[in-house]
């Protein structure tokens, strides 16, 4: 073994990225390609009577126009509800109803403006509570006919309910009878938000005369794209080749299927390559966002601070397609109790269709949602008990090897330590000390903290594979399926391979280019699973390669295979390292002096499949949903200007038990980036809709995301390393966990500072000032006075 594991090594793709030479799919042009432009519905719900595109066809350079009638197919991973161009009716303002193919972007855009669509407006539904009511307009009349992932989801035909999930652990009513104190809260709310990845969705497709479709796409999931296209269009999988390069951000928004079928189907019709790149406005208005939700909850505690019962109900506003969001909602449900040991739990999550933009996965996948509610309930409960919020949490955290999670599974002994994570996060922000007095007397300071747990939410049979392919000079190509959207997994995988053979990192390559016909299979690059699943597959591939190397070397060196070891770029006899062969003399086969040869090119292979996971019980939601949990905690100290509502993060802490930091530099990058994304969602981000369902802020000027000006200077990352037996070098996943607890930590700090009870996002300046006016006008009065005194 080498000494790479645990080193701070810059990402292996840094040079390409810093010079702008890294290739993203939006950079790819194919000879003879045509460009696609979408025409979108201005109505939230409307029957499409007629699409008149005669004028558009007259624009020089226009090749063809397509509508939903050309492509009567639906796609999706969990509920196949998504069309590429509206079939019969438009389901939201922004729903693509036609696509123009032209020789240039400009011709396509000009022609798109000349298309006349005749609509018959239908009653629309925007409110999630209204949508589940008896008189609501039905968004998908044919819901009962859609393809659904077997065993996991049950849409209710004739309603807007895409799925209902219920978790029952113990008996929650009996649990509340044991409680001395019960706290409850209604009207939790989190709005629609954008993933905000910088590379908009795009795809280029090429249909070949032999019936093969080649697709280049900015995705997290090349194999899922292939699978879902094959399922919906009935094309054999080997005739669909999905190519993958660097992905300009994903955050869940490029998981599952994207726009690939549209250029693909058009390419077949036109027999030319077809390129689609969404504009930023199309990205906001027409592509999947993250779902909004409303929730209420109640928590029962004994006087000494034990939680005895917890109940929560969520209504997820999935917009017009609930495809992936049904699983976000299910996950929020089965994780409702978070990192706490509670005997009696009930949770119901309903995924609901409305006539708003469609939704999909977002970094955290149901966990930011359930933790927002749970952790603010913990604050309320601690206050009702008169206990310190950290102490209250410590008393109720899950104990590895002892406690059962809220799906009734005993937590494995090596699952990691939530208690240490909480203590470290608290210590890093000086939890036990009062914040210093603000310099300006119209400002206030406070601290906040939240704990979290998250694991991948994937089907129980999700798999991964890896290959270690030696070249003649004993350099290695590591073949994996997991993608590169900046999360750093490929760098860690390259380090693992180099370390295992004792060769320099420079001798290992993980290609940025992947194709489903030649790369190793992995289900998707989602759920913080990449390092854990593909890493395990790689560890097995390494062992397999070493085994093959030893087979050849044993014969060549006339020693027993059991006495051989592979390290330092050599295969050698343990105890007599001078009896050895260099890897380059073995990995393409070994040749004796007279030319006789044995062995052959070494390709190690390994795979991983989720073990001991179950489909959750349809009545109780009990079972084993995931392959690992990563525990952590986020702490903040903030300062608020009472007069302007401006929140400043003075310091923050991110503590995680990740088992092993393969590369601490990249782990810190995730923890810092995740904090700021969470902070941005908490303080700024909300997509707003007018009364007719039109998105009001589909651009970066009015949908504000944190920039350098607001970026906190002091974010402390605390890493705990309790190894998990089956993780690669003991590691667990982290990519999403880093934003799960940020919102509740910041909001609880705001509430503590202001004496308010904010339970809605975002806490913009305007919303904060309004809340102070409504809930603590005295504070505002005092701040005004302080300002007038001009101290």
């Amino acid at each position, binding site marked *: 073994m080498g000494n790479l594991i645990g080193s701070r090594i810059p990402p292996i793709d840094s040079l390409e990225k*810093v010079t702008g030479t890294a*290739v993203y799919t939006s950079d790819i042009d194919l000879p003879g390609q045509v460009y696609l432009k979408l025409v979108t519905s201005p109505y939230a719900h409307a029957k499409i009577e007629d699409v008149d595109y005669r004028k558009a066809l007259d624009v020089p350079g226009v090749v063809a126009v397509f509508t939903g009638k050309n492509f009567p197919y639906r796609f999706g991973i969990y509920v196949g509800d998504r069309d590429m161009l509206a079939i019969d009716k438009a389901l939201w303002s922004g729903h693509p109803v036609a696509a123009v193919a032209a020789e240039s972007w400009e011709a396509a855009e000009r022609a798109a403006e000349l298309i006349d669509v005749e609509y018959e407006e239908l009653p629309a539904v925007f409110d999630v509570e209204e949508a589940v009511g008896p008189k609501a307009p039905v968004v998908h009349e044919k819901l009962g006919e859609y393809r659904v992932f077997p065993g996991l989801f049950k849409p209710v035909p004739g309603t807007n309910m895409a799925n209902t999930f219920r978790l029952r652990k113990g008996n929650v009513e009996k649990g509340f009878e044991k409680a001395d104190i019960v706290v409850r809260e209604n009207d939790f709310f989190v709005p629609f938000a954008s993933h905000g*990845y910088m590379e908009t969705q795009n795809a280029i497709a090429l249909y070949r005369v032999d019936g093969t479709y080649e697709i280049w796409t900015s995705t997290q999931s090349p194999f899922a794209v292939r699978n879902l296209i094959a399922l919906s269009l009935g094309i054999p999988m080997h005739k669909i080749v999905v190519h993958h390069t660097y992905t300009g*951000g994903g955050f869940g928004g490029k998981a599952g299927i994207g726009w690939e079928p549209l250029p693909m189907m058009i390419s077949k019709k036109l027999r030319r390559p077809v390129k689609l790149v969404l504009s*930023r406005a199309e990205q906001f208005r027409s592509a999947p966002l993250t779902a909004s939700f409303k929730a209420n909850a109640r928590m029962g505690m004994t006087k000494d601070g034990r939680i005895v019962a917890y109940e929560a109900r969520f209504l997820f506003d999935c917009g017009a397609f609930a495809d992936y969001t049904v699983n976000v909602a299910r996950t929020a449900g089965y994780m409702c109790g978070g990192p706490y040991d509670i005997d009696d739990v009930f949770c119901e999550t309903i995924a609901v269709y409305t006539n708003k933009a469609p939704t999909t996965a977002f970094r955290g996948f149901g966990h930011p949602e359930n933790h927002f509610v749970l952790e603010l309930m913990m604050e309320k409960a601690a206050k009702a008990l008169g206990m310190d919020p950290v102490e209250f949490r410590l008393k109720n955290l899950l104990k590895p090897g002892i406690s059962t999670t809220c799906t009734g599974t005993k937590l494995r002994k090596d699952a990691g330590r939530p208690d240490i994570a909480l203590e470290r996060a608290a210590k890093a922000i000086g939890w036990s000390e009062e914040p210093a007095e603000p310099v300006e007397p119209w400002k206030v300071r406070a601290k906040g903290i939240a704990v979290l747990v998250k694991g991948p939410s994937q089907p129980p049979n999700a798999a991964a594979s890896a290959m270690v392919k030696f070249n003649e000079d004993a350099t290695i190509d590591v073949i994996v399926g997991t993608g590169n959207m900046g999360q750093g997994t490929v760098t860690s995988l390259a380090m693992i391979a180099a370390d295992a053979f004792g060769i320099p990192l420079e001798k290992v390559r993980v290609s940025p280019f992947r194709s489903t016909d030649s790369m190793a299979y992995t289900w998707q690059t989602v759920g913080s699973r990449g390092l854990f699943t593909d890493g395990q597959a790689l560890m097995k591939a390494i062992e397999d390669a070493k085994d093959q190397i030893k087979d050849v070397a044993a014969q060549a060196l006339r020693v027993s295979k059991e006495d051989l070891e592979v390290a330092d770029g050599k295969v050698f006899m343990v105890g007599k390292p001078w009896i050895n062969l260099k890897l380059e003399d073995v990995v393409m086969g070994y040749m004796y002096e007279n030319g006789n040869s044995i062995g052959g090119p070494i390709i190690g292979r390994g795979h991983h499949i989720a073990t001991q996971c179950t489909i959750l019980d349809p009545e109780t939601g009990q079972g084993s949903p995931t392959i690992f949990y990563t525990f952590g905690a986020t702490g903040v100290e903030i300062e608020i200007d009472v007069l302007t509502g401006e929140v400043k993060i003075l310091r923050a802490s991110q503590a995680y038990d990740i088992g092993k930091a393969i590369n601490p530099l990249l782990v810190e990058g995730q923890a810092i980036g995740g904090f700021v994304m969470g902070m941005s969602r908490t303080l700024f981000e909300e997509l707003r809709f007018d009364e007719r369902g039109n998105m009001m802020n589909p651009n970066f000027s009015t949908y504000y995301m944190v920039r350098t000006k607001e970026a906190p200077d002091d974010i402390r990352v605390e890493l705990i390393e309790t190894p998990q037996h089956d993780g690669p070098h003991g590691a667990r996943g982290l990519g999403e966990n880093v934003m799960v607890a940020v919102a509740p930590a910041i909001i609880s700090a705001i509430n503590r500072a202001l004496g308010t009870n904010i339970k809605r996002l975002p806490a913009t300046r305007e919303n904060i000032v309004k809340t102070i006016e409504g809930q603590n006008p005295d504070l505002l009065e005092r701040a005004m006075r302080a300002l007038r005194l001009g101290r």
Partner: protein
Amino acid sequence: MTVNGERRAVEVKDNELLLDVLRDKLYVKSVKAACWKGECGLCTVLLNDLPVKSCMVLAMEADGADVKTAEYFIKNGELAPVQRSFIEHGALQCGFCTPAFSLAAHHLLQRNPNATREEIKEYLSGIICRCTGYKQIIEAVEDARKYYQK
């Protein structure tokens, strides 16, 4: 115009953007496009050594001009010092905004090698990064100051 040190001739229409001409006509893909309306800063290039958002510049305005993108430095010798610093600090993730940040930061440090942290934050606030949380970017720029101080 001169693009990354090479003379390039191209016919453009009066309404074409520098960004589109670079990416779609000259196949210079090291300039990125992400909002096409001057809001995100990702299409930043150096036009006659001044940073501009190339989606806000008509291609005609660049007639005879010198245009540099992030690949200029390595193409003509070696990385800009601030680019090296980005790598050392792990100040990039998906990498889509990195070319813009590296150009803007390079220009800032050339102009003001003693820029304070606050000045760096202010100067770079026109460019959006969704991955890194900016901290490592800002620290990379701070750390690179020493290479620009002569």
